[in-house]
């Protein structure tokens, strides 16, 4: 059995009297790509923020490699090897690509003087690794001049540099063109091949279905589906299930729903 990287047990989160999450169980194994799907307000964002340690759960338990971690916060999350690429908010856009990749982990020698040449070479290597190359810009280019897709590339390159074991991608393909989406997929497969894990959050069920090994569907703060890829016939079946969750019909849900882990 694959090594369990991280496990959330019975996570609840209330904002006042509103329950954002009502006892969620979620786990990610080593080298696994988990697709997290859910409508707006399903609790995806809250769940990501809890994993990243920026929001504290009201109750519940978080286990890293099988060991419960107390006092979960952003630092613990990073120590556990969790790297979140937040949609739109991850980058300091007035800075260069290099400065963003090495944000908070600058390559510096004695007395804190930067090793700029080494940083640029390392950034070039990381960018090449994820197929993020261009004649137009260099690692010294300002992020504000990049397209939305290219910015995603910078954030992903940074996550690789930080050697994350679990990279959380928050809607990574939402703003991307077809070609750029396939680049992200290519990267996700490379990360998986290297033994790292990905939590892939998306609205586009076709995108998530194309890349994930396992699907977790959130609805109004609860996990309503946790199914392996083999148990889901097609993206259409997943979409049908999602529609059924949103607007319950009188007919029985597709068989996909009945595969608890």
């Amino acid at each position: 059995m694959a090594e369990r990287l991280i496990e959330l047990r019975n996570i609840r989160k209330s904002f006042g009297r509103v329950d954002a999450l009502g006892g969620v169980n979620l786990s990610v194994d080593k080298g696994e790509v988990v697709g997290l799907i859910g409508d707006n307000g399903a609790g995806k964002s809250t769940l990501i923020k809890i994993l990243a340690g920026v929001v504290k759960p009201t109750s519940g338990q978080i286990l890293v490699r099988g060991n419960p971690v107390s006092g979960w916060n952003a630092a613990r999350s990073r120590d556990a090897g969790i790297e979140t690429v937040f949609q739109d908010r991850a980058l300091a856009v007035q800075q260069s690509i290099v400065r963003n990749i090495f944000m908070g982990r600058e390559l510096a020698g004695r007395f804190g003087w930067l090793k700029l040449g080494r940083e640029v070479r390392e950034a070039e290597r990381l960018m090449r690794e994820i197929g993020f190359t261009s004649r137009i810009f260099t690692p010294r280019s300002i992020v504000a001049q990049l397209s939305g897709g290219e910015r995603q590339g910078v954030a992903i390159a940074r996550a690789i540099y930080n050697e994350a074991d679990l990279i959380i991608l928050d809607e990574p393909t939402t703003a991307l063109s077809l070609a750029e989406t396939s680049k992200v997929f290519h990267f996700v497969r490379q990360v998986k091949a290297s033994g790292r894990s990905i939590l892939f959050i998306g609205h586009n069920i076709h995108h998530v279905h194309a890349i994930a090994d396992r699907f977790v569907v959130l609805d109004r703060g609860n996990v309503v589906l946790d199914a392996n890829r083999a148990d889901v016939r097609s993206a259409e079946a997943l979409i049908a299930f999602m529609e059924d969750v949103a607007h319950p019909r009188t007919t029985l849900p597709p068989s996909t729903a009945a595969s608890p882990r």
Partner: protein
Amino acid sequence: MTEFVGPEKDGTSATDAGPLGRRAEHPLWRFADANRAPLGTLAVFVVMMGVFLAANPRVFSEWNIYRSVLTTLPVALFLVVPLVFVVTAGEIDLSFPATMGFSAWMFALAVQAGFSPYLGAVVGIATGMVLGLIVGSIVVYFNLSSLVATLGMNFMLRGVIQIVTEGKSIALTSLAHSSAKTIFSSDVLDVPTQIFWGFAFVIFAAFLFNRHRFGAQVKIVGDNPDSASQMGIDVNLVRVKTFVFVGLGAALAGIFSTMINFTWWPTAGDGYLLPALASVFVGGTPTWGGVGTVVGGAIGALIVSFIQTGVVGAGLSGFYVQFFNGLIIILSLVGHRWNQARYR
């Protein structure tokens, strides 16, 4: 979009290539592009000096007028350069005039008590940094508006000086014969020595800003504090450090100013509040944080210092000084708008 985009010869549109397009390959363009703000400020300075020179060639071809500017310019440099860091971090510090007066006061007391001026300088610098730490901690950890809180601190610190000294100045005639005076504020080949210290400070700070982890984190904190703290940067600590740096600069400014005049006044530093701030923005550092330029700020200080001398030297009455001060500030801001468009 930018003044550096040349003719489009080979079918690549300017928007595709952007200011950092293939021209980024050429080191000279890369340098010009990366330093547009200070180069623009330098252009303003050159044009201004050209106008002065045309208005009164005789006065402006004599060394004396430059000598008088270089005598007091270092004091402005010590103030302006750290302010660039604070503004880039997304904060503002209006307490530096009182910090300058307070640190110089401690320096003056130490020298008056018979201690060596070097020891006095250490005391003064320590005072400035501690005051910077206090001001910064109040602003950052109480989460106050730095604009208002530092203004309050400026009044309060100045008030302490007034209360204790009852408005009396301190004359330091012993300084005139000290070795510290020779090293820090005398003449070498008719050039005031303090300007070398001022330049050294600017160069050090420019490296700190562009080639040091501290400068990199100051920019990131001013740019996107959420992202910075997510990536493990102690955002508040970085902010406090910029205030400590201002305290250090203000102390140096106060000590040099006291050494130039052999006298400490209870109002020391007061006159620098607005000119120093104006220099930061004239230099090309925008108000919104995330980017800035140390060298630009230094040239901005040079411009602001020269206006007063220049306007009078050009043959206009002193009443024109304020008008030209304002004119230069507005024109510089309009010019920097173009540079800064690429960041937003």
